[in-house]
Every structure is written in C-alpha cells, then in structure tokens.
C-alpha cells in the first residue's frame, strides 16, 4: 500500500486536468471559450475607428486591446464557468467531490483553473496580436496590466460561482450570465472608454465590476494613471471580489434543489 498523502495543489491539479478534458470535449464550450473572444477585435475594429479618440489620447489599438481582454474574461472565463459550475452541480459531481479530501475552495478553484488558463493565454495572444497588427506600443506600466488581468481572472471566476448559485440548469446559464456580460459591454469601458461618456454617467460606470480591471489593463499600456487613478480601480476590483467571495460562501449550492 502506498502512503502518499495528497496535497491541496495535487488535488486541484487532478481536478483541473479532468476539467480541461471535459472542456475539450464540449464543442460549444470550445467555440465560445476559445474562438469567440479571439474574433472580437476584428468585428469591433470598424466601430472603434468611428470613435472620437484623439481628445482622450487613445488610439484604435489601445481601445481594442483592453476590449478584447475584457471579452476574453467575460466569455472564456465568466460565461464558461457559470456553465461548468452549474453542470457539475446538476450532475452531482460537486456533491461527490465534497465527500472526499478536497476542500470546498479547492473544488471551485480546481474546476475554474482550465477556463482561467484559457483566459490568460488568450489575453497574451491578444496582446501580441494587437501589438503586431494594430500598432499598439509596448506597455508603459506592465505591472498594472498584469495586476488587472490576474485580478480580472479571479473576479470573473468568483462571479461565475455566484451566478451559478442561482442558475438552475445549464441551459438557463446562458440567460443568467447575460446581466454581467451586457452591463460590462455597455458601461464598464470594455467597448466604449469611460472618458468618452458624460462625467456623471462615467462616475456610476466606474462602480461596475469589470471597470477596474479594464482601467488597469488600459492604464498598463498607456502608463498615464496617477496614483489616485490606480488606487480606485484596485479598490473597486478588490471590493467586488470580496463581495463575490462572501456571496459564494453564503449562497453557492453544492447540490441540485430537490
């Protein structure tokens, strides 16, 4: 008999590996998680070219790149994980996993890992692609871009678990994930930079969950964020993550309703 004791990292790796195989076996998941976000910059390019960007000192590439990363976070990470968490719960996989040595947080993190990894790789591909094709300069404050991306991955995984808590079936996941996706696309600066909006509206929009992430990513490239302008998005992102963690602990369901 072997006496190997499992570790949290080992357990999460085993789960992540299984989830990656499952992701690869679902054609819809592959399409929406891998290809859709990569196609986004192309479809948005002409719309962004119409914007009056000169006044706020942005180029088409500097709008499209954060937008693409935002889409990657929304579709590859958030929407995919709402479906994953819901599907595993409805198949009683989560309940079965909880009978073993995995802790609750390890189950969620392990299951979220493949989607988060896809989001990360996509963002890197998009950064390289936009740099090469859209004349985006090298990031002036790369640490902010990295901070934005990493916190964005964590926040999206966390919000996905919250959303899955009130999603009954895999089919309804497509509906329950819409509010965050649509609000992000309209008011978080993912598509339209907040600087182009009237001041009062922009202030409200700053509170949207993904605004901080997008601000940090864009600021990482432009390098023009002041200390105050850096602290605000970091704090809102942290606050949303804290709210998300609280909501998961309070409302996440580990087995289907009977």
């Amino acid at each position: 008999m072997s006496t190997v004791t499992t570790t949290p990292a080992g357990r999460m790796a085993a789960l992540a590996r299984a989830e990656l195989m499952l992701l690869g076996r679902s054609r819809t998941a592959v399409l929406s998680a891998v290809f859709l976000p990569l196609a986004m910059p192309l479809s948005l390019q002409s719309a962004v070219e119409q914007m009056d960007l000169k006044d706020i000192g942005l180029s088409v590439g500097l709008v499209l790149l954060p937008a693409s990363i935002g889409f990657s976070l929304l579709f590859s990470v958030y929407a995919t994980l709402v479906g994953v968490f819901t599907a595993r719960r409805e198949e009683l996989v989560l309940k079965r996993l909880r009978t073993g040595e995995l802790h609750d947080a390890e189950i969620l993190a392990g299951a979220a890992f493949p989607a988060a990894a896809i989001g990360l790789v996509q963002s890197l591909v998009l950064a390289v692609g936009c740099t090469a094709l859209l004349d985006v300069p090298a990031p002036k404050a790369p640490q902010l871009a990295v901070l934005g991306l990493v916190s964005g991955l964590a926040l999206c995984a966390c919000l996905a678990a919250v959303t899955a808590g009130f999603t009954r079936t895999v089919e309804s996941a497509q509906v329950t994930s819409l509010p965050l996706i649509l609000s992000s696309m309209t008011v978080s600066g993912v598509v339209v930079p907040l600087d182009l909006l009237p001041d009062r509206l922009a202030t409200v929009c700053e509170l949207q969950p993904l605004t901080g992430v997008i601000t940090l990513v864009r600021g990482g490239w432009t390098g023009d964020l002041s200390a105050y302008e850096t602290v605000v998005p970091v704090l809102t992102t942290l606050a949303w993550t804290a709210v998300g963690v609280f909501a998961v602990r309070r409302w996440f369901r580990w087995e289907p309703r009977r």
Partner: protein
Amino acid sequence: MIEVTDLRRVYGGGFEAVRGISFSVRRGEIFALLGTNGAGKTSTVELLEGLARPAGGRVRVLGHDPVADRAVVRPRTGVMLQEGGFPSELTVAETTRLWTGCTSGARPEREALELVGLAGKADVRVKQLSGGERRRLDLALALLGEPEVLFLDEPTTGLDAEGRRDTWDLVRALRDAGTTVLLTTHYLEEAEDLADRLAILHEGRIAAAGTPDDVTAAQPSRISFELPAGYFVGDLPPLGELGVCGHEMAGRTVRLRTHELQRTATRLLVWAERAVVELRRLDVRSASLEEAFLGIARDTSRPAQEYVA
C-alpha cells in the same frame, strides 16, 4: 468507530428529517440503516459523512467531528452516495484518475476497477455505463483509499441479482479485513443477510435496533389458514391456550400471531386432526425482518409506502 448521539437534522423549510437518533458502530462491523424512502436514512448518512452539520446532537467518526476535523477524518473514510456524481463525458479510467489524485494512499487504478469487475470498461465513458456499472464505479472510488470506515448509501439499488451478490461478497470481504461499514438500504434481504447489526428508521426516529435476530425475535410468528366450511373462529380452541397473541380475519382466512410458534402450531394441528377438518392454505411462518419492517411501516398515517422486499 462511529458514535451518534441524539442526532437531529432540520432542512431549510423546517422539515425535521432526523429527530434525535443515537447508535454506535464498532470496528469491523457492518451496520445497516433500514427504512422506507423518506425515513431519514440519507439525511443521517450525510451528517456522518460530514456533508452537512447537524441541527442538534453529536456525531463522532473515528473519534472526530466529521465537519470540524475533516482533514483528519476524510483520508480514512470512503463514501458512496445514493446517486453517482461523475462527469458523463469522462471515461471510467479518467474518472478513476481524477479520484486517485484526490485520495491519500490510493490503490492502483487498475486494482480498484478489478475489485468491482470494471477493468474491462476502463475506456468507456461514464454516460455509456449501465446503472449497475455506475454503482460499481462509485463503489470502486469509495474503496480507492482503503478506508477504515465505509459509508454506502443504497449500494445495490439498480443492480441485478448477480451484481448485488457480488457487492455483498465484496462488502463482507472488506468487513472481514477490518473495515467498518455503514450502509443504508430498503432491501430487507440485504439488511438481513449482510448486516451484523441494524437499525430500522421510521420518520426520522429509530423504531427498532439490534442484530437481525434481536429485531426479528421481538416480532411474532404467523400462522394463516382458511377456516373449514361450517366453522367459526369461536369453534377453534381458545386462542389464549394456543399461545396466540393476536389474530385477524380476512374473509374466510384466519391469521394468528404467536411468540411460541411450535406450541401454537402443534395445538392447532392436533385440534384439526381430532376434529377431522382440513386447514386449507395452511401457512406457518417464523418471524422475519420483513414482519418487523412492515409492522413499523404500517404504524404510519401516510397511505403509500414504497418498499421492496
């Protein structure tokens, strides 16, 4: 190995599924929780597995609280839920590998699958397995870490007769090797053949407990026959003298209950011999767990009871 004291479980809607039960399971023992659907078996087992906290009372598994001390308890227990819980798109081997990665001291994957006769299905996806094969996969994963305590929630539901025998043999072999097994079942036969001790749960309480013989011994044996034409119950010898403790009539059929089967049967037959009457459809049956179970299930206001003999 398992100590349960005055355990209670209340669901969100206020429904009290477990209403103060106490029992203990010793090392190397097979203990069965027997009951109809809705009796509180699964609700109880989930508390022992540490999936939920009790509303009241105390659970100790291997001397520890299964929720608070999960890090100590989990590597030493194996669990099979009432219903699977495996991603349908993974193969049997992939599912086993996932669990191997999450189980301390896991046996080799192939060995685990061979234990339950699934080695030939390693490359089949879970969704293509039959219900019985899924139960066996579940059992294989519960056994993966060579647990000291094994929780089996209805382990043979959905298995055919042969699969059930195989599972029983495996559970007995595990018990003989020192594993403590707590199982739930609504199959009387399973509890009777397999369990060293059992408790019959009814509406969240323990209605009877002990070895299958103890529980059965408290029950009366039964004699039934058709009353000969022209005879009435009053024509039989006084029932008290026969050792009968209760009787009922259904049409022409007389049913007698007795704790002294041999005495009652002998006197009844001697009477019939002397009166030169034939007791048609005579049925003499010693007490069984089924009697105990049905007797308990009958004590209920709910009309429809699902049970499988």
